[in-house]
């Protein structure tokens, strides 16, 4: 499945007097991996939430494959069909095992039990946890939990992955594993990915980076600019 094209135009998100995203415009091409950098509070998470329809902008538009997703009546359906989220924390439900956690979006899609099992086993195999299907989150390491969370994001075969600090809570070894995994999945399926991270090596892992400062996009595309901003 080809990735989604994301077009953001004059996007603004204000909370009262505070403007968190200030007139941001950019485009991400299908299959492209774009890094989002910036200091804490610069608006990275808010921007990802706006693109994923978890939040609505004050002004501006977001189009995914030329479809305006700014003020959707059923945003959950859009997320279900198009978007896979990876958060800094895995947010696995502790009472469910790895496979059941991965099946959560598939339950929403009303897939049959057999199809849910097939899909969840497939994606857990892709993230290297094919032998830990029945493991409870408490029995998994931090890196393994995040891999289950990635499998959950991939289960619906999304055209767009939005990853917010996916390695922020992991040690360097686990981080490397997760980055490799995400890159492999994106390459294999041609998925579009926008990833927010403080990781200094982010630029090496993405096609290009966008730098946010106080909600404004101050750099667009060049590795050198992003490295300077991070440092």
């Amino acid at each position: 499945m080809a990735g989604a094209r994301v077009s953001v135009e004059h996007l603004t998100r204000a909370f009262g007097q505070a403007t968190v995203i200030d007139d941001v415009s950019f485009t991400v091409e299908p299959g492209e991996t774009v890094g989002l950098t910036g200091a804490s509070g610069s608006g990275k998470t808010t921007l990802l939430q706006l693109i994923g329809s978890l939040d609505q902008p004050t002004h501006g538009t977001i189009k995914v494959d030329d479809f305006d997703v700014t003020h959707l009546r059923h945003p959950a359906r859009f997320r279900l069909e198009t978007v896979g989220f990876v958060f800094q924390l895995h947010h696995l439900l502790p009472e469910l095992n790895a496979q059941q956690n991965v099946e959560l979006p598939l339950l929403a899609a009303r897939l049959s039990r057999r199809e849910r099992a097939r899909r969840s086993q497939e994606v857990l195999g892709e993230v290297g946890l094919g032998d830990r299907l029945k493991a409870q989150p408490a029995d998994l390491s931090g890196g393994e939990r995040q891999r289950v969370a990635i499998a959950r994001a991939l289960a619906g075969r999304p055209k767009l992955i939005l990853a917010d600090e996916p390695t922020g809570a992991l040690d360097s070894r686990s981080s490397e594993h997760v980055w490799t995994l995400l890159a492999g999945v994106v390459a294999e399926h041609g998925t579009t990915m926008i990833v927010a991270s403080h990781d200094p090596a982010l630029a090496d892992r993405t096609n290009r980076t966008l730098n946010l400062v106080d909600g404004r996009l101050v750099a667009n595309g060049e590795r050198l600019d992003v490295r300077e901003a991070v440092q």
Partner: protein
Amino acid sequence: MIAVVPALAALRRRPGRTFLTSLGTALGIATIVALLAVGQGAQDAGNQFFHLGASDLGLFQKDAADPTTSILPESLLTTLRQTPGIAAATPLILLVGDIKPEPGAIVFGADPGGFLLHRLVFTSGRMFGQGEQAVVGDQLAAQMHLRVGGTLTVARRRLLVTGIFHIGVAFQDGGAFVPLALAQQISGRQSEATTIAVKLGVGTRPAAATRFLTRRFPGITVIGEGQEAPRAGANAQLLSKTSFVIAVLALLIGGIGVMNTMLMSVVERRAEFALLSAVGWSAVQIVQRVIVEGVLTTLLGAMVGLLFGVIGAQLLVRALGAQAFVSPHVTAWALGRALLIGVLIGVVGALYPAWRAARVSPARVLAQR
């Protein structure tokens, strides 16, 4: 159902809370089952009570506190017997609590020539004559070790037992019949009766006769069917209404308990609902999920409550000292109703928490973590 598996897992995650919530529901359901069973038992007993012998209708004094306190003039009989459609009418006096060792046993004062006594089947002895005599039901005779020729003491009067009968009606097999005149002496109600049993002529419809008699005699209540039995006494009506109020209170307490617990659960699990929303669960699906949890919890409670209710009904009858009159009758319909009520409690109790869960903002909650 989309939400059953995760909902079951969520319930297992907090077994203590699930147990306590279910217990609250169980007590509510048990109350309902016990009241329904005792009520049904009382109604069955009333049905037997008001259909003495071959009577089609029973006449009682209107607004009497209790059927046994009804007082009707014996002179009414003359008018009744002349009324078209009425084949026979016979008076009856009820004496309650006058057999000391068996206070639950009822003594019926009846006219030996009246149609009510024709159905008594004597296992030994014969019908009483006039004077200080009695015939005893086989159940009471067994309890009191009475035989023909023995004596039965009723209100300090020693009566000769002339016969032991069986009729198949618990009230009567557990009681005794004495001559009407004797019962009137004992009760001090000369020329009065507690009730008048009426047998209708062939072709006379009970409903039409009831309407006619009610219009003709404004001061009486006519009981035609067992279901109408509670109308005969204000106490029965009071009991019926009290049972209803208790059942409603039990429902309210159960519903509020479920709502409170589900609300706490939803507040604690905001991140979980935020995540479900983020991965594509619609508001309707999240609402379903919470309601399923509520229903599963109350169903668990309802099943335990059914068991408690059946046991509780027996205990309630014993506590009221009414086992001589009332056998709790647990019907499939009563159990079904209780289960249905359990489901309704779950649905109603979970509605508001479900609405709250569906309104959790994933952007805010997940960003806070």
